């Protein structure tokens, strides 16, 4: 079983739609949960960062963590063409005293005007 599973999409929605992006993970010891956004031909950049179960909101973005189900989600309200990018979930684990991230494969999102 892979440590992190993410549906690669692609996902295409009309402008203004609500977008739901999801990942599942296998190890209950994972502590921190992140969403990165990667525009075409660019490096990933941190979008959302959560630690505990529940919701965290930042503008049009909401990150949700359900540790009991090992499930994390990113919701985008009123999606815009500028949200078109690949979204990667990332989860941290601690190994040997240093922390590394495990990334999902990424979901490519296109928001059509």
């Amino acid at each position, binding site marked *: 079983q892979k440590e992190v599973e*993410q549906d*690669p999409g692609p996902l295409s929605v009309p402008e203004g739609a609500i977008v739901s992006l999801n990942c599942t993970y296998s190890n209950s010891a994972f502590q*921190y949960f*992140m969403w990165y956004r990667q525009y075409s*031909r*660019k*490096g*990933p*950049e*941190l979008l959302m*960062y959560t630690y505990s179960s529940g919701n965290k909101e930042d503008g049009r973005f909401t990150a949700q963590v359900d540790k009991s189900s090992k499930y994390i989600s990113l919701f985008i309200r009123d999606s815009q063409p500028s949200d078109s990018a690949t979204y*990667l979930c*990332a989860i*941290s684990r601690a190994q*040997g*005293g*240093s*922390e*590394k*991230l495990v*990334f*999902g*494969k*990424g979901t490519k999102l296109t928001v059509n005007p």
Partner: protein
Amino acid sequence: NAGVTQTPKFRILKIGQSMTLQCTQDMNHNYMYWYRQDPGMGLKLIYYSVGAGITDKGEVPNGYNVSRSTTEDFPLRLELAAPSQTSVYFCASRDTSGGRADTQYFGPGTRLTVL
């Protein structure tokens, strides 16, 4: 701050050639990482470093080498390039201060093709 910079942006290598991908950060981060990203496959960790003089293998280290002589620089060496090393390579550094201990800052990437 320039953040994380990588050179070159693009490179084409012939099978068996060698090259060094350069990575520099000006944020005084101790932790640095090298990833490769293949289409639809996410980011795979190649090597990482927790400080000058300290490096360790990641998930896919075969065919690569690293060194870390300064806090700022973390070059990645490819010896005897193979077509399987065709990929986009990202360098990242990590801010270990404050509460967001997992924030990684990525460079713009190096697109490498091995023919």
